[in-house]
């Protein structure tokens, strides 16, 4: 497209500000694209618009108060965020989580993975250009899931339900039936998205070969989650270091081939199938009654001095909590290892040389949530 004549002109790159207020930035995120015609030459991201000092605030909160803050660092996958945190506290306080609580935690985390991936599909569909349909489908499915979460924890998004040692209160009596109901509609929703997007030729044209990143580069950038699995690296914390009861259920790790936008989308879609499979197995294996907190929990939880790093597989990647305690009932330092900010670092490598429209899609395919990037 660049002819010899055009190279005789001295042209300047256009600086295009995909500003903090933009329909496509998935939160308040700013990137300045340096554009030559329609081809992106440079990407400079600016983050920090959503920084609320969550890590510092948690130093002043005891372990129960901090759970609400962990919800808000990753609001779309709040159960997974809470899980890392309470597992870190349990490791330091040497608490033993009862069986039933572990199964329930696992079910809720996988359902949260489903709802987070639905959100991704909805937002990604809008980025690719389908007018309203993917978003509304996503919201329809999320509504079912969120209604279930409301019945269990009381809140639709900021659950504050996990506690160090187990759960805050037990699930309703009809939990298993409700989960099966929700799974049925989730399956229908995943099928809808599959039929709507996966084989659509225009979708394939927009996403195949776009924003590719090789496995070696992805490992160097420290990516994790579906974004790196799409590049061919079978990295999944649930298989590498199983936590909760992931070693007792049977599921596949979905690995892509090219590391392009299509593979990242398809990995997430297939992961939803796997999540549904996991939840069904959990429902069968979960005991119907039993304690959900260890006996004799102290009123105010205190931990031994020490430090621990616990990581779990959040929908966006490896969400880790590094907790340092000097004894007492609050952390000395809480560091959130955010999957999104590591994945976001690869944005420039993925977008340079692509068109403006592709840069938007690439950003959408990394699936960031700014509250985790900025905390």
């Amino acid at each position, binding site marked *: 497209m660049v002819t010899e004549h055009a190279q005789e002109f001295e042209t300047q790159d256009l600086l295009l500000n995909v500003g903090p207020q933009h329909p496509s930035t998935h939160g308040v995120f700013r990137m300045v694209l340096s554009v030559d015609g329609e081809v992106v030459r440079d990407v400079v991201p600016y983050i920090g618009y959503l920084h609320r000092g969550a890590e510092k605030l948690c130093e002043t909160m005891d372990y129960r108060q901090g759970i609400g803050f962990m919800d808000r660092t990753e609001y779309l996958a709040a159960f997974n965020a809470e899980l890392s945190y309470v597992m870190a506290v349990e490791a330091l306080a040497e608490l033993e989580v009862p069986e039933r609580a572990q199964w329930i935690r696992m079910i809720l985390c996988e359902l949260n993975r489903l709802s987070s991936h639905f959100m991704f599909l909805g937002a990604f569909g809008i980025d690719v250009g389908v007018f309203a349909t993917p978003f509304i489908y996503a919201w329809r499915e999320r509504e079912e899931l969120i209604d279930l979460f409301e019945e269990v924890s009381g809140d639709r998004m900021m659950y504050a339900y996990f506690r160090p040692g*187990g759960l805050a209160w037990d699930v309703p009596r009809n939990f298993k039936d409700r989960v099966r109901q929700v799974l049925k509609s989730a399956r229908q929703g995943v099928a809808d998205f599959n039929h709507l997007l996966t084989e659509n030729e225009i979708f394939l044209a927009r996403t195949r070969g776009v924003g590719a990143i090789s496995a070696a580069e992805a490992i160097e950038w420290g990516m994790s989650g579906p974004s790196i699995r799409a590049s061919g690296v079978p990295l999944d914390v649930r298989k590498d270091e199983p936590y909760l009861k992931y070693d007792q259920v049977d599921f596949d790790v979905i690995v892509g081939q090219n590391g392009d936008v299509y593979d990242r989308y398809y990995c997430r879609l297939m992961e939803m199938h796997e999540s549904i499979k996991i939840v069904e197995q959990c429902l069968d294996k979960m005991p119907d009654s039993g304690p959900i907190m260890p006996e004799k929990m102290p009123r105010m939880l205190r931990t031994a001095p020490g430090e621990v790093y616990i990581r779990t597989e959040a929908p966006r990647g490896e969400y880790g909590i590094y907790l340092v305690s000097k004894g007492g009932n609050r952390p000395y330092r809480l560091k959130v290892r955010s999957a999104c900010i590591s994945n976001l670092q690869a944005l420039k490598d993925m977008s340079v040389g692509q068109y403006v429209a592709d840069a938007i899609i690439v950003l959408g395919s990394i699936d960031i949530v700014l509250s985790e990037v900025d905390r």
Partner: protein
Amino acid sequence: MKGIARSMLTTLSTFARKPVTRNYPDFHRPLPKTDRAFPLLLWDQEIDEPFCTGCHACERACPVECMTVLMKDNPNHKSVGGNSSRRKIIDKFWIDYARCMRCNICVEVCNFDAISMNNTWTGHETSVYDRQDLVMDLQQLLSQSRAGQIQEWVPVIGQTND
């Protein structure tokens, strides 16, 4: 074209399904008992006074420091001729709904089961025109329970609750 045709057939199939719209505010869907809107104080209907004794437990436990609590001697105590066994009673109580993050910790630490999260629609429909109106005082916090319009469910931590 086959993929495009498939997409179009998928959208056509949703054309035939029932709309999922809930016509709020004409229709309020029933909230589950576990629903957690903003905190409310509970009224002891038998003795005709609040349960709350102003012990500051919730105020200290609140992560965002949204409460202000003041207690007073109970004029209804048995020792001064009343019928209540509460020596102290709540005098003034403010909760800033704008700061509250609905984490339920105040409910968990309360020794008297005096505070509960509002699980009715009134708890969700708290829009006001001025931010200062979101600071609820004692009368506003007690009014719903006093009128009997609350679906009470105080969860006990770690136990089966239904």
